[in-house]
C-alpha cells in the first residue's frame, strides 16, 4: 500500500458543507481515522451526525490532533486559500476533491505544494483508498477489496468500474489513487508509479487514462525506464471526436494530439498490456499474476 494506511490521521476541510459532511461520515464508516474537520467560524461544533470536532483553522486542528493529511471539500474559489493553509500548517498529503477550481488557482496551489515538497492529489479527483485500511475522498469503499493490484487513474467513476471488475475477478487492490481529470494537477502518473514500484504489497499496476494531453505517453515512457512491475492500461475515449471536450477539462483531442490511439500505441511500445474493456483489464491482471507466480 502507498501514501495512506490505517494509521493515517486525516482532517477534512469543508467538513460542514453538504458534500463534506456526507463523505466525512462515509470515510469514518469505512474506518478512516478522521480526527477533525475545519470550517472557519464553525470551530467548537461537531461535523453533523458524527463525533468529529470542527476547528476554525488547519493550524489549530493539526496542533490538536497530529493529523498529517487533509482532504479538501471546500468551494472552488476558496480551495487555493484552504490548500495553502494546509500546506503552511505542515500537512504532508493534500487530497483536493473540489471540482471547478480555476486553473490559475490550481497552478498556484501546485507551485506551493512543490515548493514545500508536499504530496498533493487532485484537484477534481475521487481521492485515494487503501482497501481495508483507509479511504480519503469520495471513492465508494464497498467495491474495493484488499489485494496486490495498484491502481492509478485520471478518472472517477471509470476507476470504480474497473475496480469492480477487478474485485469481481478476485483481484484485490493495494491502493487506488485517483489523480483527477483537470489539466493542471498536483500528482502525475510517475509519482504514483514510482510509489507502486517500490511497494512490497503491489504486484501488478493498473493505469487508467483518457484522451487529452500527453500524460499517458509520458507515463508509458516512465514505465519503460523506471518500472519493473507489470502494468495493464486502459484508455477511455477511443471513439471520441476531435476538438470536443468530453466532460473533464482535460479530456479533449487538440490539433490531432492526445488521441486514445496515440496513447495506446505508446503504452504498447513501453511493454504495457492494453485492455479495451474494464473486464479485459481484470482478465489481463489475472493472467499476469499467474505468470508472476510461475516465475
Amino acid at each position, binding site marked *: 500500500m502507498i501514501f495512506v494506511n490505517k494509521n493515517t490521521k486525516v482532517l477534512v476541510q469543508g467538513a460542514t458543507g453538504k458534500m463534506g459532511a456526507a463523505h466525512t461520515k462515509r470515510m469514518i464508516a469505512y474506518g478512516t481515522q478522521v480526527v477533525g474537520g475545519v470550517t472557519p467560524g464553525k470551530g467548537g461544533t461537531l461535523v453533523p451526525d458524527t463525533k468529529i470536532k470542527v476547528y476554525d483553522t488547519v493550524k489549530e486542528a493539526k496542533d490538536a490532533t497530529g493529523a498529517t493529511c487533509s482532504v479538501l471539500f471546500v468551494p472552488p474559489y476558496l480551495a487555493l486559500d484552504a490548500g495553502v493553509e494546509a500546506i503552511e500548517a505542515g500537512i504532508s498529503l493534500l487530497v483536493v476533491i473540489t471540482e471547478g477550481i480555476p486553473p*490559475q488557482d490550481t497552478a498556484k496551489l501546485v*507551485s506551493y505544494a512543490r515548493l514545500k515538497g508536499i504530496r498533493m492529489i487532485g484537484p477534481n479527483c475521487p481521492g485515494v483508498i487503501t482497501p481495508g485500511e483507509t479511504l480519503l475522498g*469520495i471513492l465508494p469503499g464497498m467495491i474495493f477489496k484488499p489485494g496486490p493490484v495498484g491502481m492509478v487513474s485520471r478518472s472517477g467513476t471509470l476507476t*470504480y*468500474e474497473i475496480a469492480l471488475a477487478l474485485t469481481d475477478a478476485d483481484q484485490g487492490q493495494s491502493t487506488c489513487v485517483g489523480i483527477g481529470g483537470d*489539466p493542471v494537477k498536483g500528482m502525475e502518473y510517475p509519482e504514483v508509479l514510482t510509489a507502486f514500484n517500490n511497494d512490497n504489497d503491489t504486484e501488478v499496476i493498473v493505469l487508467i487514462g483518457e484522451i487529452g*494531453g500527453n500524460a499517458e505517453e509520458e507515463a508509458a515512457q516512465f514505465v519503460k525506464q523506471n518500472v519493473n512491475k507489470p502494468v495493464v492500461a486502459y484508455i477511455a*475515449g*477511443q471513439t471520441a471526436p476531435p476538438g470536443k471536450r*468530453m466532460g473533464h477539462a482535460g479530456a479533449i483531442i487538440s490539433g490531432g494530439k492526445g488521441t486514445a490511439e496515440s496513447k495506446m500505441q505508446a503504452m504498447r511500445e513501453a511493454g504495457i498490456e492494453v485492455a479495451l474493456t474494464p473486464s479485459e483489464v481484470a482478465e489481463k491482471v489475472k493472467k499476469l499474476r499467474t505468470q508472476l507466480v510461475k516465475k
Partner: protein
Amino acid sequence: MQMVTSHIESDGAETNMNLYEWEAKRIFADWGISVPQSIRITREEELSKVNFDFPLTIKCQVLSGGRGKAGGIQFAKDLKEAQSLVGKLMAMTIGGSKTESLLIEPKVAIKHEMYLSVTMDRARGCPVYIAAKEGGIEIESNKSIITEPIPYPFQPYVARNLAKKMGLSGALLNKVASIAERLYKLFDQLDLDLAEINPLVITQSDEVIALDGKIIVNDDALGRQKMFDGWQEKHMADLPERERKAKKQGLNLVELDGNIGIICNGAGLTMATMDMVKNFGGNPGNFLDAGGGSDQEKTLAAIELVNENPNVKVILLNILGGITACDEVAHALVEFMKKNPKRSMVVRLRGNNQDKAEKMLADSGLKLFPDLENAVKEAVSKSKVAV
C-alpha cells in the same frame, strides 16, 4: 501579407468561452497593449463613423478559426469598395459560426510579424509563454517557436527572458517584454485559458501592436469574473441547441451521429461506455456526462435532453453510484417513464443504495442490468431493431 488565423489550441478551447476579436482587443487596450484604431459595425450606413484613413481592413467577427482562408478578411481602398463589402461579409458563416459584426481598421503598414501567447502548460503545471519571432505562418508547425514557463509569483524579468529567447534586442526587446508582461497579467487576472496575439506586428513606424487577438475565458472562473457577467449566452451562439441547453444545466453533452443515447455519471465512464458501444457494433448518438454528484433533478434533465434528440432510438443509462446515489437516479427514471412510457431504455445501476433503487423500479417494466457489458450489448441489440 499573409493573414494568420491559426492559433495554439488550448485545453477546452471548444467549450470554454471564446471571445470575438473586437472583445479581445478592447481587453488588450484596457491593459495597455496597443491595438489599431477601429470601429465595429453591422450595417453599411455605419461606415460614416470611420474616422481614420483608407485603405481599410474589414474583418468578420466570428468565433471559429480559418477566417482568413474563408475570405472573412477583406481590404477596401475607398468608401465605395467598403460599402460593397459590408453586406457580403455580414452574411458570411465561417466554420459554422455566423458573422456577429465587422471590425474595421486602417490597413496597418507591417514591417514584421511575430507571435505571442500565454496559456496553461498541463505538463509543467504552470502558465507558459509561447512565442515566435517569425510569425505569419501556421503557428503549430512554426519551427522558431519558443516557450518560457511563468513561475508564481510573477516578476517582469520572465517577460524579458522570453523576449531575449525570441532573439529580440534593443528597444524592441523592451517593447515586446512590456507587452508580454501585460499579457500575462490579464491572463492571470481574468482567469483565461488563452490570451493570444497573432500576429504581434512591428509597424513601419516601429510601434509594436496586436493586429489580431484571441481570448478564451475559463468557464470555471465565470462566477468570479464580474466583467463577463451575461457574456456566456452570447458566446454559445454557435453551439447546437441541445448542447447549449445542456451547458446551461451544468451537463456536458456532445452530440454524435449514431442512434444510442448514452448517459453516465463521470466523464471517463461515459467515454468508456461509448467505446464499448462502438466495440460491440453500436453507434453512439451522444456523450452525456451527468456529473459525479448528480441528483434526481439533474438526472431527469439529462434523460429528457437525450430524449429530445430525434436520432436516438434507445437510451443507455449507466450509473455506477459512488457519489451519485442509485435511488436518486431511480426517482428520476420513475418520473421520466411516467411521461414517456414507450421510450426504449436500457438501465445499468450499481452502487450506493442499489437495493432501494431496484425496489422502486420493480414495477416500471424496466430491466435493470448490474453488469455494464450486458447492458451495452442489450442497448446495441435494441438499436438495431426496426421501429
